[in-house]
């Protein structure tokens, strides 16, 4: 296997891993599977298109504003919609996220049409190819994605392990009733989990848009990243990272050695294999199966 192929796998894995953090955060903290995650990621990218249009001379500001918008977006979604389902059956919440995804897809086409946007071009940036080793080229945006994924994972790890809010979030995920009893406000914790989730998703969306533009089918990447989270066990960040590597490796290998058309289905083949062999994933626990 050539080094270029390995590089491609790492880049794709980074994308899946970064997007998966959103699935894991929400599931771990509130046991909800957010199937609108792909659409939210896409809206994050569109946010950059919007801010880029206004602040085309100041890319950093545009990026920060879009990222802040991404954070706010998740909290708003929770406050307006998901909070009413806290305490209800998980399946109802998941169905609502599906409906939300459809709503967002429709809205984004109504607002931005089906045209393809290149916010990078608005900044005058043309995503040069970077030579990271002899015979190995990846785009600059892809390199940025890999770095960002590492930073985000490190940041999330530190946050969850060592900060007060992080420990509270973990506690709420393990035992919501007891958490309420001990003074932790579940609505606040859940809103923040949603905010963090859409924040990382928006970062992924923004970088992807800088790499290859954004248009209305970008949300599919979000769905393809889901098997990575599942392989890891849905509530483990480390698991999601490993799952992303597995899925990316399988996908690239299939495209390279079998059939390029397999690209969209390989993640789900991996998903089916995992569900057949070890449904609770690498780092999940058996009890999880019964909780749903």
């Amino acid at each position, binding site marked *: 296997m050539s080094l270029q192929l390995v590089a491609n796998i790492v880049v794709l894995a980074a994308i899946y891993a970064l997007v998966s953090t959103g699935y894991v955060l929400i599931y771990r903290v509130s046991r909800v*599977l957010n199937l609108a995650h792909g659409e939210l990621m896409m809206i994050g990218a569109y946010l950059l298109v919007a801010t880029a249009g206004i602040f085309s001379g100041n890319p950093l500001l545009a990026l920060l504003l879009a990222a802040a918008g991404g954070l706010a977006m998740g909290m708003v979604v929770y406050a307006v*919609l998901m909070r*009413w*389902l806290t305490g209800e059956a*998980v*399946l*109802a919440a*998941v*169905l*609502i996220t*599906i*409906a*939300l*995804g*459809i*709503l*967002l*897809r*429709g*809205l984004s*086409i*109504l607002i931005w*049409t*089906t045209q393809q946007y290149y916010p990078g071009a608005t900044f005058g940036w043309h995503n040069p190819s970077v030579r990271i080793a002899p015979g190995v080229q990846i785009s600059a945006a892809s390199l940025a994605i890999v770095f960002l994924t590492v930073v985000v994972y490190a940041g999330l790890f530190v946050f969850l392990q060592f900060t007060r809010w992080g420990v509270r979030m973990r506690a709420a995920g393990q035992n919501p009733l007891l958490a309420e009893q001990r003074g932790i406000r579940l609505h606040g914790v859940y809103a923040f989990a949603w905010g963090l989730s859409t924040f990382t998703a928006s970062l992924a969306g923004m970088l992807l848009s800088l790499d290859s533009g954004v248009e209305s089918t970008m949300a599919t990447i979000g769905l393809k990243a889901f*098997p990575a989270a*599942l392989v890891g066990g849905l509530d483990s960040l480390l698991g999601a990272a490993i799952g992303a590597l597995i899925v990316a490796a399988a996908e690239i290998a299939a495209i390279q050695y079998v*059939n390029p*058309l*397999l690209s*969209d*289905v390989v993640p*789900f*083949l991996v*998903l*089916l294999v995992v*569900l*057949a062999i070890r*449904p609770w994933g690498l780092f999940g626990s058996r009890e999880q*199966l*019964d909780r*749903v």
Partner: protein
Amino acid sequence: MNEQASYKQELALFGTPARRRRLAAALAVSAVLPFMVSPFQLDLANQVLLASIGALALMLLTGFAGLISLGTAGLLGAGAYTVGVLVREAGAPFWITLPVAAIVGAGLGLIFGLPSLRLRGLYLAISTLGLHFVVVYLGGEYEAREVLATGVMIDSPSLAGFTLTSGRAWYFVLLAFAALALLVSVNLQRSRTGRAWRALRERDVVAGALGINVQRFKLLAFMISATMTTVAGALFAYFRNFVSIDAFSLYLTVQYVAMIIIGGMGSIPGALLGAAFVVLFPYAIEAIAAYLPARFSNIVFALDYAAFGVVMILFLLLEPAGLLGIWQRIRNAVAAWRAPKRTARASSP
């Protein structure tokens, strides 16, 4: 004379005079309908009939047996594609393609149902999602290999010189299939299988402890539901004279899920109501869109998505019992309004 006076009456499908009257009325209306509405409206009615087959199938699986499935679009596509491939490769007539589609459906039902032996709820739904993508991939593979950029064209089915093309003819055919699906559903609901499914839905562990062969009934539910769905897909292929894998997206699955939610989960009338609602909804949106600025009316499908998403959210949040729940509330309110009012004086200490 609406009460059932004997066990025999309860067992019979139309045991009471009231039910028989309703059946007669329904038959009369359905017989006359195609001659009283415009061709466009007739086509709508046909679409609703076709959709109700799939809706009933999903209702059996999810509403009755409590098995979550997101594989409806994949199964519809499999049915449609079976017809497409057989017609294209072998020129097979409908009285071969339909049974083959049914058999394919049973087989796929078995496959889709296997995960349900180990998984529940969310995880089961995810497994059916994965299988959906596999089916879609296989269809896409076929189209790519045969270089069918726009799908497979299919001639209308014909028998003994008579070709099924007119709206009215299709109406009666689809009515027959829908009635068959309805009969199957109603009978299953009242049968031993239906009771076993109800037990499964509540607590499958307990059901197993009570001696119900959980595995057999779960697979049976998937197979029956899948067979109905693939046959619906096959009919769809003939109805539209055309099959393309693009039509069988996740959105289609969500529409069917919405049918049984909006109609009212777990009930047969609910499935039919939901099918009608979801099929007619885009047309209502289109009608409204005519009044909106051109920018919006140009991308009506996006307006469709957005409006559909909003309606589904509203139903899930406000009326999880669906249209039937709303209907029930209206009936209760009317009954309360009509009931003789009692004064409070009589009972105070």
